[in-house]
């Protein structure tokens, strides 16, 4: 089975939002790391697809939409 893929428009990474076992995958952009200091900063358009729930447990969205994503054809 070929996995459907999406491309993150923040970092350019390509990932399968649904795995072969049917479970979801939550993409997070890698940060930019200063090679000399090791300090990390979020890249422009940083995307974090981890889910956010309110205090009642209702799904309200993802952590950071960032620059978005698009399907890979």
């Amino acid at each position, binding site marked *: 089975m070929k996995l459907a893929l999406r491309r993150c428009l923040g970092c350019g990474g390509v990932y399968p939002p649904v795995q072969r076992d049917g479970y979801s995958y939550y993409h997070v952009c*890698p940060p930019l790391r200063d090679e000399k200091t090791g300090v990390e900063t979020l890249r422009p358009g940083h995307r974090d697809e*981890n889910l956010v729930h309110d205090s009642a447990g209702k799904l309200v969205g993802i952590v950071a939409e960032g620059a978005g994503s698009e399907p890979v054809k």
Partner: protein
Amino acid sequence: MPEATRPSGRIRVIVGTDPAAGAEILETVPAGVQWRLIAIHAALVTDATVINRVVALVLDDGANIFLFTGSSYIQVASQFIHYTFGAFSRQGDTLVGAILCGYPEGIVIGPGFRFSTVMVNLQAGDDWGPPIYMVEEWPA
């Protein structure tokens, strides 16, 4: 929960994000689960820039690094090498372009924890393939 009393988790093989060229691998444990890392595999193809690269694997809790392990192999220009990280007692390279790198056995990481590569002399054209990793997963 102590390992001796923890029920067996679900064994999963996860295909992670294939980074753009010049970017490192970074995977984050999602909310609601914890993972025991069994093995992590990724392949790296280097561009034509003549410089020595060395690959490391870093685990952190989202901010604080608690494990930093790496390869003793020097990857040069225009090479394709498989890297596999796991609880190996040996580290070394093989004759088929495969490098084994060890970390301690039984590492369990929770939501927001991350593993990532850190390369010495990463070049803009160096390109990691997607990490494929095997974990044992439990609800967090």
